[in-house]
């Protein structure tokens, strides 16, 4: 479903060129959930930007849902690849109601039954119809993220790119959103690429993940090996130690 080979992403600001991703390769099969984990600045979000076609300058090979993402996305590409952003406060238009946020993709793609589809989408993400005509400022962070998920789902895509979908939420809401995402994935047979700095989130959602460090993919692991085996790269060990949290210094 997704093939990434020797992907390099550069950001240019004037004369300076910042190399965010330095040639990474990975494959994701249909129906799989692949995680990218790493600290901030490791280039993991840049990989998602390139996958979605939002990054301007990248080189290498990307095949996602049979297409190479470019700045001019085809309508088919939009219908097969969607994204959920990190900050639910910034990803919903502050002056649009939930109803118009969810109906817009449908009207862009000329789909009918807009009203029925919007109400079905609300039901699917576990919000009742009373939310339909609210503005984002009348919703909590978790509710907003649900709306953002509904918006990504409403075109029935095959691939969903998740950019730290829970890092802006409280811990109790994080689990709800993650469970909602995995329910929807199982029901619809979606392919996920999940980016997170939190190894626990990645381990909960994904079967396989890559560890990114300073723009490179230093190690690929399965979740089983995370539980049983030892990681090879020292940075991965560091991440695992950080994810285990505050263990007593003596152990």
């Amino acid at each position, binding site marked *: 479903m997704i093939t990434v080979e020797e992907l390099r992403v550069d950001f240019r600001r004037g004369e300076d060129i910042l190399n965010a991703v330095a040639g990474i390769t990975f494959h994701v099969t249909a129906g799989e959930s692949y995680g990218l984990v790493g600290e901030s600045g490791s280039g993991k979000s840049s990989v998602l930007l390139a996958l*979605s*076609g*939002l990054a301007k300058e990248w080189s290498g090979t990307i095949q996602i849902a049979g297409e190479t993402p470019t700045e001019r*996305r085809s*309508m088919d590409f*939009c*219908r097969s*690849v*969607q*994204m959920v*952003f*990190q*900050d639910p406060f*910034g*990803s*919903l*238009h*502050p*002056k*649009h*109601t939930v*109803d*118009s946020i969810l109906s*817009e*993709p449908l009207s*862009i*793609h000329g789909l009918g039954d807009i009203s029925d589809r919007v109400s079905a989408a609300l039901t699917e993400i576990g919000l009742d119809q*009373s*939310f339909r*005509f*609210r*503005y984002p400022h*009348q919703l909590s962070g978790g509710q907003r993220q649900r709306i*953002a998920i509904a*918006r990504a789902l409403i*075109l029935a895509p095959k691939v969903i790119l998740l950019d730290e979908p829970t890092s802006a939420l409280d811990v109790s809401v994080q689990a709800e959103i993650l469970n909602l995402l995995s329910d929807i994935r199982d029901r619809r047979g979606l392919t996920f690429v999940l980016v997170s700095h939190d190894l626990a989130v990645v381990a909960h959602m994904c079967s396989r993940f890559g560890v990114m460090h300073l723009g490179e993919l230093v190690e690929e692991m399965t979740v089983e090996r995370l539980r049983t085996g030892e990681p090879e790269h020292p940075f991965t060990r560091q991440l695992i130690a950080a994810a285990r949290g505050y263990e007593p210094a003596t152990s």
Partner: protein
Amino acid sequence: MTPAWNSTRWLLSHTPGSKVQARLGRIYMGWLTFRSNPIGMTGLVIVALLVAVAILAPWLSEHTPFTQSLPDRLRPPSHDHWFGTDELGRDIFSRIVHGTRITLLIVCLVVIVAAPLGLVVGSVSGYFGGWLDIVAMRITDIVLAFPRLILALAFVAALGPGLENAVIAIAVTAWPPYARIARAETMTIRHSDFINAARLQGATHFRVITCHVFPMCASSLIIRVSLDMAGIILTAAGLGFLGLGAQPPAPEWGAMVSSGRQFMLDQWWVAAIPGLAILIVSLGFNLLGDGLRDVLDPRSH
């Protein structure tokens, strides 16, 4: 239908049942904020009065604004002529009342031309950036660099005096600040996630600009336009004063001040009354703009 149906509760509902209810509720919330602002309310009352007077002009004035009566020239304010008469014996009260129509017409026409023009130029150049932005903003800078009244004067001098040309001249000089504001607002949101999300859904640039960028620019633009209306009135009056705006015998306030100038010392009312009208109306628009800013500007909360 339940007798206890309460319109306030319907408007303030947290679970609106339709798009219309959600929008009206939002407007009502703004109205509640605006109502508690005495300055803004004063402005609103003045502007509402202006509009009412303009609509009811023929019924409010006993005399016609054009009937000359030389035996009655330069009469002081009296029971018969509330604001006195001018040098041709015309009733100043009815001229002021009919002048509201001209003033409102100028303001509305300028706003209808200048605000959308500035909005489009600013949001398109802010959204696309690059050379388009550079070219559009340099043109804006050039227009901004001219003193407004002087540029309007030059336009009217080239096009010939008259109300329509005055409107065109003012509109041509009024759009650059709107373009600046719209561009600044657009630049702050163009890389935001909701714009990216719309692009990912396949929205065209045209759709992103009209459906996503315009609503974000609207509130700052409305504030600026309502504050500028006073300036527009003054510029129009200035052109009228110089004889380049509405032509006689149209009861334009600036032209009335100008014709009263020669009787200033002995018959003060001929110039002072239209001057006062200009003052009150521009004050009203300024106060209204201030009140709107308190409601609409997210930074002022």
